[in-house]
């Protein structure tokens, strides 16, 4: 390979990486990447708060067991409940204006809490809380947030902003001629800029994926955590999720790089790609393969089961009619991205510097 190329690409990276990381009006990308981290962080805090409260309640109502808690039935009187469970850990009485009296009692054995509502001295409503998270359920929720929010929205729009700006941003800033007047081949410039966008988006979004997963693991109690890491292959999930994140940046990056060169209107582009990616599940097989999400979905480690009653538009996003085998998915996505980048390098050769009419 010609070493001048490499030096030129590294010169382009020098200029572009900083721009991609700290784009003007681009801070919201960090916010998008942060949202799932905040969701899991928030969930973790709530669970810890609950566990602590249960612990205090359990200490305040000694002798309470799970069996005793579950033996409380609707219609029992305060005296009957007190006979089984003893003094409540916390209690509150409210008398309505019409004279009806409500009592709210709480008991806990440390892992399960029951909130009992009495109306005029008889149990009217029972509500049960558990301290431990449901491993299966949380794993699916993680997969759901990752697929529906993170891949389809956060990374999608993050890549759109970063990669479309590579050329469009410079046309709007009227600074693209700076590159076009240097002795660098335009296809080399395209590759250099693409790599710069890739470095920025991959770092931002993969770091977020790692953070999401770490908090997700930390939020489990030790038993569930071990179960997730050992029996459920938690670490291989992490690898898959990070890999899918990187591939998503690669794939969406190429699409939006090309869009920034070929198409003037960013809104139309975004809408078209978004719709195309969303209806992917119902497209014929041949067309389905010309999309980024098809390959990414195939690589996600956890299937999202669709229960009855899920509204069709959501089900549409999740259906995986046929999963490509991992190696095919990875190669397919690489091939798709390479083809799209190649088209960009062809088109850029005919690009004119015509700032005034491009706005």
């Amino acid at each position, binding site marked *: 390979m010609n070493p001048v190329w490499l030096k030129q690409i590294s010169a382009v990276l020098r200029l572009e990486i900083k721009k991609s990381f700290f784009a003007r009006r681009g801070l919201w990308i960090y916010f998008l990447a942060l949202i799932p981290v905040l969701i899991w962080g928030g969930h973790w805090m709530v669970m810890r708060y609950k566990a602590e409260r249960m612990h205090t309640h359990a200490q305040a109502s000694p002798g309470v067991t799970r069996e005793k808690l579950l033996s409380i039935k609707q219609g029992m009187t305060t005296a009957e409940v007190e006979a089984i469970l003893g003094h409540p850990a916390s209690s509150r009485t409210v008398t309505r204006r019409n004279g009806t009296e409500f009592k709210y009692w709480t008991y806990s054995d440390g892992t399960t809490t029951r909130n009992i509502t009495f109306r005029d001295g008889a149990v009217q409503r029972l509500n049960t809380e558990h301290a431990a998270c449901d491993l299966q359920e949380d794993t699916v929720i993680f997969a759901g947030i990752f697929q529906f929010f993170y891949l389809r929205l956060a990374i999608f729009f993050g890549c759109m902003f970063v990669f479309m700006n590579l050329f469009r941003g410079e046309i709007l800033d009227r*600074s693209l001629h*700076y590159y076009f007047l240097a*002795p660098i081949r335009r296809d080399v410039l395209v590759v250099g800029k693409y790599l710069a966008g890739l470095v920025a988006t991959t770092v931002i979004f993969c770091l977020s994926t790692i953070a999401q997963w770490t908090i997700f693991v930390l939020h489990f109690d030790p038993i569930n955590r071990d179960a997730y890491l050992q029996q459920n292959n938690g670490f291989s999930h992490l690898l898959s999720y990070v890999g899918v994140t990187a591939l998503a940046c690669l794939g969406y990056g190429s699409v939006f790089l090309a869009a920034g060169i070929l198409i003037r209107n960013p809104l139309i582009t975004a809408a078209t790609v978004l719709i195309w990616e969303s209806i992917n599940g119902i497209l014929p097989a041949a067309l389905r393969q010309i999309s980024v999400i098809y390959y990414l979905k195939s690589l996600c480690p956890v299937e999202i089961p669709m229960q009855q009653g899920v509204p069709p538009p959501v089900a549409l996003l999740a259906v995986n009619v046929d999963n490509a085998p991992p190696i095919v998915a990875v190669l397919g996505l690489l091939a798709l991205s390479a083809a799209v980048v190649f088209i960009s390098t062809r088109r850029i050769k005919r690009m004119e510097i015509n700032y005034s009419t491009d706005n």
Partner: protein
Amino acid sequence: MAAPPPIEKSLIQLNDVSKFYGEVLGVNKINLAIPPGITSLVGPNGSGKTTLMNLITGLLQPTRGSIEVCGMTPEDPETFFRNVGYCTQFDSYPKGFTGYDFVYSFLRLFGWDHAECEQRAWRAIDRVNLREAASRKIAGYSKGMRQRIRLAQAISHDPRVLILDEPLNGLDPLVRAETIALFREFSGEGRHVIISSHVLHEVDIISDQVILMSSGYIVAEGQIKGVRSEIEEHPMQVLIRCDRPQALASRIFESNNVVEAKVHGDGGGLLIKTRNADEFYLMMNRIAMNGIMVETVAPVDDDVQSLYEYLIDDGGGGGGSKS
């Protein structure tokens, strides 16, 4: 500065070049063969000077015709832009750049290493006398400083063809003289220097060749000496922006180059008419050094327009290209 590489093909050639922006005419049927030396493209606003320069450097693609610069085309940017420097009219810069960054980063794109780029960048910056300002952000530069940093970028790789779009615009008389000296030095080494201007007076004495353009066509081409005498018959109107117009007016009337002078409506400038622009600019140099703060000296556009009409109708090439 090193001598330019041997010139096997030494002409910039445009064969029947036309450029349309959709329906709008940029330039039409341009045939030119430009030899080394200083060539000036002169024409009023919208006459197609920038279009022509952008076509030569590949920023625009011709609708028809072909262009070669000493045997090279922008299709092969690796060779082309090592030999061609273009100082554009675009007054915009990559975000957050200092003057030094602007020149240095451009040179890095050539594939040269840090030391070489650094050395070349400082050499170019020194040539335009911008060393003190080089480490400041371009965003804080004055118009003339921005003009000069772009000039530094264009000459930084020591090109054998230098193309400059209105390079004298916004320069004060002193810097203008230095810049013209730089062009002379460049062209003296057998290189091409192509500059554009809408003021014939400002470039005709320094040019080996002048190309007059109007509405996308070449209306006259060649050595301009014959036209010069006629221009002197036609007074030129100049607007001088300065802090004490009255004081300047009294100074200026000591000279017999000025036929008329009046303070501009807003009180921040002086409008004068002169028959001898060269003398007038020289005089402005002396005044600029004598305590009056002169901000800009610029010909009044309406007047330039009338000069062109005058030239093109009566004096110039009569509307046809004679390449």
